[in-house]
């Protein structure tokens, strides 16, 4: 099916909106009426047709606008894309994974032909055609990770595995929920998750690390993460926190439906065949409160979840200033009825 790409922005006038179809497939992350930290990892297998899990790499109506926003971020701050020298093989692995996925699952939009190391890539929405030699950096206009991630929705990290640990050694990170690739580059798993509250103490990190190190080629896994963002802003980086931080004071009972967005990350993890590195993809989906309450179950459940959050999670996710305003506004959509288990609409 051919996608209809929206023209919209994630900054300045914030014209981003979800179509009814995009709302219906939104990966609502709350399986029950309360929230608690867990590993919540599951196999990244094909989901229902039309869902964000139908294909391993999800391309949607926001594709072109997101790629434009990424280009704007990189023009201002090239440090959002960095790779340590030993990660070049993993970069090629990533390029293969993404090109193969896109060409296989979206043949109306992408095509890849391979003749040995001679590859021919076509990205029709972005009007890109490139012949190159796989493994030869000089035949692409950017290094391989940067080249392909300028053409694929989601942030991508490449993680090296050595010394019984995982190391964040490369990444393209322009749509992040307040963490810095430049600062975290080169850190091991425990270090880069250092600021996460509670999880370390209840042993989540140890178990997650063990699990991730055992991921096998061809058996990717995924999990969901979430926070909230004021305005549909993709680039909520610490680098630009002095520019977007004040947005958190602008939420009022009158504008919360429009301004406040649930931000969900579908995080995927793949073992790469040549490098033995792991791809960590962080695909961000945004939905305004106005859009979210069009699904009855979500309007009932979200205020209940927000009420149940422990203070540490509220602080860590930066919800403190507007949580009560959101709960009060959402309360009118909670008629007290029972909600079914799972995140999908009824």
């Amino acid at each position: 099916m051919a996608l209809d790409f929206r023209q919209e922005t994630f900054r300045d006038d914030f014209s981003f909106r979800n179509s009814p179809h995009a709302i219906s497939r939104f990966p609502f992350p709350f399986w029950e009426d309360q929230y608690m930290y867990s590993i919540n990892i599951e196999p990244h297998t094909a989901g229902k047709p039309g869902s964000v899990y139908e294909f391993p790499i999800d391309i949607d109506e926001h594709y072109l606008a997101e790629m434009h926003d990424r280009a704007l971020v990189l023009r201002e701050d090239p440090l959002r894309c960095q790779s340590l020298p030993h990660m070049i093989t993993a970069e090629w692995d990533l390029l293969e994974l993404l090109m193969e996925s896109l060409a296989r699952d979206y043949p109306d939009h992408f095509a890849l032909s391979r003749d040995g190391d001679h590859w021919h890539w076509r990205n029709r929405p972005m009007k890109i055609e490139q012949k190159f030699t796989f493994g030869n950096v000089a035949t692409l206009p950017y290094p391989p990770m940067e080249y392909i991630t300028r053409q694929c929705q989601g942030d991508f990290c490449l993680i090296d595995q050595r010394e019984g640990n995982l190391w964040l050694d490369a990444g393209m990170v322009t749509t992040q929920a307040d963490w810095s690739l430049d600062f975290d580059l080169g850190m091991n798993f425990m270090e880069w998750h250092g600021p996460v509250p509670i999880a370390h103490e209840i042993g989540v990190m140890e178990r997650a690390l063990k699990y991730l190190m055992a991921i096998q080629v061809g058996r990717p896994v995924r999990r969901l993460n979430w926070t909230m963002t004021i305005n549909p802003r993709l680039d909520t980086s610490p680098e630009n926190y002095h520019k977007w931080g004040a947005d958190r004071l602008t939420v009022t009972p009158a504008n919360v439906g429009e301004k406040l967005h649930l931000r969900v990350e579908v995080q995927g993890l793949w073992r790469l065949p040549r490098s033995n590195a792991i791809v960590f993809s962080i695909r961000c989906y945004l939905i305004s409160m106005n859009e979210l309450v069009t699904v009855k179950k979500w309007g009932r459940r979200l205020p209940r979840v927000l009420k149940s959050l422990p203070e540490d999670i509220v602080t860590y996710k930066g919800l403190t200033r507007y949580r009560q305003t959101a709960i009060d506004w959402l309360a009118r959509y909670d008629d007290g009825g029972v909600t079914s288990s799972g995140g999908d609409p009824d």
Partner: protein
Amino acid sequence: MKPLFAGIKSRPLYTGVAIDHAASHHIWAVEGGGVSKLRAILTGDATHLLAASTILVTGDQAAATCEFYHQKQADSCHHMQTVQNLVTRLAVMLSTARMGLRLYVLGSEDFIGQVAATAQRQGIDFDDMRTEQCGSLARLVQCVHCKGMIDHVTTNIVPCPHCGIQLFVRDHYSRRLGAFQGVAVNAEDPSAIPTIEEIYK
């Protein structure tokens, strides 16, 4: 209630500078309060060790320290005017170093961080060094906004001398940079004037 942050997960452990007797050469990078520890461990009668030791020292007692180790016939002792000079010279030494070298770092956390980041670029991992924190708890801080480095930070909040933003010094540490992270302290509400306290003396 149990504190949620039981230590800084990303901060390295400084486990001390026990001498590695298997090493064929020893480089000692020493700053400020590290001098007295150096004098305690690398004593004047450790003849073999001295003959295989290169010492780079900076801070108030650097001149006297060099004088002492010259007399005791250390392989070489370099009195460096600043931390930056010391790190520059060390990088060149490490770039031509051979197998069997052991690097010891003694000084403030700020200093250890700068030496460690330099050593890492020369292929020496943190755990291959022997480190001991001595003296000041001052921190090296990277401004997350402009990426400028600020050394010897002793307060919880510091104005970035490069871009002017008031930074809160987070308990989040990058070994690659040898620095803690500084993030705008009142970005959400610029009218909130934070209390500045000296907590990393």
